[in-house]
């Protein structure tokens, strides 16, 4: 995270290494309902990230002692495929990093899924990173939200997540792997777009109070585009039903 002596120049002219401006997202593609055996699923390509999310349930919570008689429980598993990354970073297996990301993802969704509608049940979320290039926890949450919606699970909102970081004196949105490794600060956020609630906020490195405020504004601005892509993905699957027929 911290600046290294051999730190590459990340900003040249007012452009980033991959030619983006400070407020530009990487190209994002979302596809809903891609897996037949899952109750709900989504596939996300975000820059070089390729992420698959699947949702099962609500089903009877097992083992029985984990059941909550008044609400559903969420189980979340984030995992990186052994072939997903360039270096040894975060690869394979239930390591400390994967457990942490599973936990923060679960807690983000516990705030939007209407758990009281499914007492005593369990909802499983699986996030599998097939190819990683920085910002996979944000992309995983974005994918899992679409997967939950396509499973027909009651939710307050369709959430998204994106990271904002600091390179030198500049704030940049949606950092990729190289920017992430050599940046001064990295702050992933998950947002409920309906009312702007913050569901996930983590930070590596240092940012001043005004920078955090400015970063949040950038996230909310970029989120409009992300939300639209998520909704379009769901609409596309069911758009045949628009012509006044259906059930």
């Amino acid at each position, binding site marked *: 995270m911290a600046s290294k002596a051999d730190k590459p120049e990340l900003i040249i002219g007012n452009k980033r290494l991959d030619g983006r401006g400070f407020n530009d997202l990487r190209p994002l593609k979302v596809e809903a309902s891609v897996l037949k055996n899952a109750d709900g699923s989504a596939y996300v390509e975000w820059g070089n990230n390729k992420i698959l999310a699947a949702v099962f349930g609500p089903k009877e919570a097992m083992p029985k002692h984990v059941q909550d008689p008044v609400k559903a429980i969420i189980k979340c598993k984030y995992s990186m495929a052994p072939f997903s990354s360039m270096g040894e970073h975060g690869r394979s297996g239930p390591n400390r990093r994967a457990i942490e990301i599973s936990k923060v993802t679960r807690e983000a969704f516990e705030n939007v899924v209407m758990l009281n509608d499914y007492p005593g049940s369990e909802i499983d979320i699986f996030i599998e990173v097939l190819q990683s290039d920085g910002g996979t926890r944000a992309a995983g949450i974005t994918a899992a939200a679409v997967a939950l919606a396509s499973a*027909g699970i009651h939710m307050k909102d369709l959430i998204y997540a994106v990271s904002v970081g600091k390179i030198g004196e500049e704030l940049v949105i949606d950092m990729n792997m190289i920017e992430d490794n050599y940046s001064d600060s990295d702050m992933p956020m998950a947002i409920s777009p309906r009312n702007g609630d913050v569901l996930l906020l983590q930070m590596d490195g240092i940012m001043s109070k005004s920078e955090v405020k400015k970063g949040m504004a950038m996230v909310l601005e970029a989120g409009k585009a992300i939300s639209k892509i998520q909704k379009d993905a769901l609409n596309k699957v069911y758009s045949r*039903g628009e012509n006044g027929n259906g059930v």
Partner: protein
Amino acid sequence: MARQIVIPGDLVAEQALKIEHSYIDNGKTYAKVLGLLDTEKGTIVPLEGIWSPRIGDTVVGIVTGMRSTVYEVDLDFFGRSILIGSKYDRHTYKIGEVIEAEVKDVEDRKTIILTRPQSLFGGTILSVKPTKIPRVIGKANTMVQQIAAMTKSNIIVGNNGLVWMKGGDIGLATAAIRKIESEAHTQGLTEQIKMMLEKGTTNA
């Protein structure tokens, strides 16, 4: 009819309205499920999701356990479903037996109490997405009656997503139900299914 797709968090109404599959926050109504909003009737029909049990629903299930006169029934649902045997009813159900029953009561959204049980002997069970069941039944049972008449099968459709079939051309009936499930949101489905069934029965 004006229908539009709603996604969780979409604004349904500026006022606080009591609509199924929606919730109220700050005096406004929002959708909580991926569904079709009928703006004229003010209803939301979910496109995906599990069965939400209601009193009076017909269900098909398998008896999985018994304790004195209380039977546990598997309805492919996250909660518990029980059938309380009547003291005037001498009939006992065996574990593994398929029954048809009616939902008498739903407690705490998870415990389903069944009534008016009926044994179903033999036959096949088909699992269908619960959100597509109303389409399989059709308006005033037309769809299921049509399939049953043309394939000469006994068909009982449970709202929980399990369909029991026996006799006749089960293969054709299964194909018809699968077609309804995958094309539930297309127009003129009754005619399409009729054509499919006519073709299927003449070929056989």
